[in-house]
């Protein structure tokens, strides 16, 4: 396996508040290889967007990285001064956000926004940047790109705007893209077009991608590996097929089972009882223990780290041979 492009080691993000410090991310570690798409899933508040924001250096204050390291090509980027990070962001890491309307500056023509980004980060002339801007718009599938380059963002529909945002994230040719819910605001037929585009770009440009979404279908179609997050930690990480088809962590098992199937009707969907804890009330031991159907004494006392389960790694004591309770040989079933 190639050396990782992005490496996140033991990342911890804290929010100081009047009532004490909240830990939003705790001990998050993963890596992404060049050309690889890592999906990050989880419920709202699980910390998936926070992880993306920490990587691109855009944590909302008062949030701050309290411990851990983020390395891009072996170089630490979590402690860079603002101006240096600004250069990394755009040139080396591109960002795509959920809402294409707020990402684009409504007062500038889309072509000018692309040209400005390229002139900031690449050593090229104005004329060359303009030529490339048209090229990027064509690449992301905007019809009549040569004319549309002079349009304003409001003149594009939602799906077209998201394509412009993708072009903007790609135009400085970053090695890594952090895409936070890039298709959530889009209709399903447009979503399919955008997914196809992202896949093609990852393949053709060799760009690595961290794809944050709550939609397992999008992950299944796009990602190579997937990380399932719960209450600020990674519950399970592994190849996408394994995590979707043979999840090991009881939370991943419940999450996959609760997705309504498209190909059949079920009388009753599997559900995980209860709700994810708030950051201020994360239980002792494993954060999932109050909702876990397999809970045993150790889960209430000690917090598990990611353990080998075969193809994936899961933060669950069931997979530690030293625990008093083991995973049954036939694997976990929901309910």
């Amino acid at each position, binding site marked *: 396996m190639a050396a990782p492009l992005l490496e996140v080691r033991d990342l911890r993000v804290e929010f100081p508040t009047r009532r004490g410090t909240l830990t939003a991310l705790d001990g998050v570690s993963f890596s992404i290889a060049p050309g690889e798409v890592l999906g990050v899933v989880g*419920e*709202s508040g699980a910390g998936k967007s926070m992880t993306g924001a920490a990587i691109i250096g855009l944590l909302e204050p008062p949030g701050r990285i309290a411990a851990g390291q983020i390395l891009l090509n072996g170089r630490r980027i979590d402690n860079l001064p603002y101006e240096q990070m600004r250069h990394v962001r755009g040139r080396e890491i591109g960002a795509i956000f959920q809402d294409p309307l707020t990402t684009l500056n409504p007062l500038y023509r889309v072509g000018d926004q692309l040209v400005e980004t390229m002139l900031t980060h690449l050593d090229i002339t104005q004329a060359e940047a303009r030529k490339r801007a048209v090229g990027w718009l064509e690449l992301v599938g905007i019809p009549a790109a040569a004319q549309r380059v002079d349009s304003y963002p409001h003149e594009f*529909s939602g*799906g*077209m705007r998201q394509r412009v945002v993708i072009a903007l994230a790609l135009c400085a040719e970053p090695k890594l893209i952090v895409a936070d819910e890039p298709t959530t605001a889009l*209709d*399903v*037929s*447009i*979503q*399919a*077009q955008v*997914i*196809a585009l992202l896949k093609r770009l990852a393949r053709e440009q060799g760009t690595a991608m961290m794809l944050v979404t*709550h*939609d*397992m*279908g*999008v992950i*299944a*179609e*796009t990602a190579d590996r997937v990380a399932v997050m719960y209450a600020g930690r990674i519950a399970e990480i592994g190849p*996408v*097929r394994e995590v*979707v088809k043979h999840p090991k962590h009881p939370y991943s098992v*419940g*999450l*996959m089972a*609760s*997705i*309504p*199937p*498209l*190909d*059949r*009707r*079920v*009388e*009753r*969907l*599997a*559900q*995980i009882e209860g*709700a994810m804890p708030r950051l201020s009330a994360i239980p002792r031991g494993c954060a999932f223990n109050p909702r876990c159907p397999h809970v045993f004494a150790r889960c209430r006392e000690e917090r598990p780290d990611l353990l080998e389960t075969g193809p994936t790694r899961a933060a669950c004591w069931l997979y530690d041979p030293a625990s008093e309770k083991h995973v049954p040989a036939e694997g976990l079933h929901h309910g």
Partner: protein
Amino acid sequence: MAEQVVHVPDPTDFAADAHIERPHQGGPPMMVVEDLARFFDVSRPWLQRTLAREPRRILRAVDGIAFDIPKGTTLSLVGESGCGKSTVARLVVGLYPPTRGRVLFDGQDLAKARSDSTQRRRMQMIFQDPYASLNPRWRVRDIIAEPIRAFGLIQGAAAQRDRVAQLLTQVGLSPLDGEKFPHEFSGGQRQRISIARALSSNPEFLVCDEPTSALDVSVQAQILNLMKTLQRDLGLTYLFISHNLSVVRQISDRIGVMYLGRIAELAPAETLFVTPRHPYTRALMEAIPDLDMTGRQRIPVGGEVPSPISPPPGCAFHPRCPLANDRCRAEVPKLVPARATPGAIVACHAVEEGRDAG
């Protein structure tokens, strides 16, 4: 009441076509919708319009749809943003007056039913955003009791309190939760409160506008299971609005697929998923990312939903349709029973002519 239900079948009327399905379902219709339309005037102000010599701009949000919902069943309307599904939800509960057509609620004209509080309490609505649809300054018990008080259903504070406690239990919350304020609850719990409020007037018909779209998938499963249980226990009739086909499959008896203000296809749920006929229905199903990762090469439908202010002539789907021909570009297709698919009605020239085979 019976004589009001009688309506003269007219072979050119969409509603008459919709009746073909009725033998498949049990009860009499809770709701009948005939040629329903709602237009919005989105013109600029008169002076600007006159100076710029612009014509009026009319947005045809819903343009002639018909369906009926037998008692105790669920009809779902699916489609992408701008297809008019939420406008239909608001029309059938009377939040908008229709531009054309009519809505019969249990055999009675909707306008008449809405003016009578004993009828009005029989229908309720659940909205998409559980953060916006609950008053943040009211305690949950007051939110839930409001319809009880407004309709004067239960007299006496103690009896009302008991009823609220019973409703909270019914939706899977604790009676003690009534003392709290909405901000103390998560999205899924708030949606349970919305459901409890809707149930408090003992309704028979619930209009649910994207009730799970703002929720996480594991919470969505909880709410869908709750809605199914309530339907079974209370005999509720649902009009369910959603953009999510896999959710709709779990909850519906029949499904209408909408495109640009019209119904493209209306069929029993299983029929629609096993043999989708309209090219748009097929495209929608094709576009859903699938968990099975079969690696199938999908051909996403190109283009986007056109503007309902200037819809394309003929069939509104023709600019994106692989089967479009000259007739599709000129003539609006009518909803007619699909060949070889009993129970399905489809508005497509290609299906009607048998051009969609193969």
